[in-house]
């Protein structure tokens, strides 16, 4: 069972986590990750995220399906924000449930690496220096390369 949500409005990861526990049913392990907007010591006022409507959802659905099959996960949820966000707001929440913990850990790790550099999103930081487009860092590229081995 999978759920992928692209949200224009703020969300609270703890609420989604509770909902997912009900959705996941009879399982042995749940792992989750929540990402937040960093204020960078006041330098960043707003993080703006844009997406390719239709394609972004479809690509994430495809990757969640892949993750569930590869890591033997029985339920998975991804919520990702778009639009303008302030420092401290949640950007993304990924959670996975499986019979045993290893699959749940790896599915969430895999999906976050994918979302950082392979999902159709584009980020701008808007702050004291104006607007700046953000590109994947070399760490992000190394992270996703792990899963090809």
């Amino acid at each position: 069972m999978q759920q992928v949500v692209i949200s224009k409005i703020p969300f609270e990861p703890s609420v989604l986590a509770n909902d997912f526990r009900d959705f996941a049913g009879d399982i042995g392990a749940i792992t989750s990750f929540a990402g937040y907007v960093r204020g960078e010591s006041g330098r960043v006022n707003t993080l703006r995220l844009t997406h390719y409507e239709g394609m972004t959802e479809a690509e994430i659905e495809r990757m969640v399906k892949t993750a569930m099959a590869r890591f033997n996960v029985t339920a998975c949820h991804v919520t990702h924000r778009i639009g303008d966000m302030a420092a401290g707001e949640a950007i993304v929440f990924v959670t996975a449930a499986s019979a045993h913990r290893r699959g749940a850990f790896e599915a969430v790790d895999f999906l976050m690496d994918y979302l950082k550099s392979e999902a159709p999103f584009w980020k701008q930081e808007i702050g004291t220096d104006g607007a700046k487009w953000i590109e994947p860092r070399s760490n992000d590229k190394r992270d996703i390369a792990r899963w090809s081995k």
Partner: protein
Amino acid sequence: MLSRIMIRILFFGKLADVGQALTCELPAGVKTVQELAAWLGSNNPMLAKGLGQKGGRIAVNQNMVVGDHPVEDGDEIAFMSPLSGG
């Protein structure tokens, strides 16, 4: 000269700062997405620079493709700056 093949072109990320989404006829002689990128860049040097950036992606009808992918009537072609989510 125009070809009577109608396409829609979209730009995402930094490319959207320098490229305008449009629906147009495919120029005669342009057969692939790479050739379309070159044609778009020939009219817009800043767009040419952006389209040449490493890590950019191209999608046709919402599927990622490589540069020699053909362009056909009714296609939606998206030129994307490097992806960054999470």
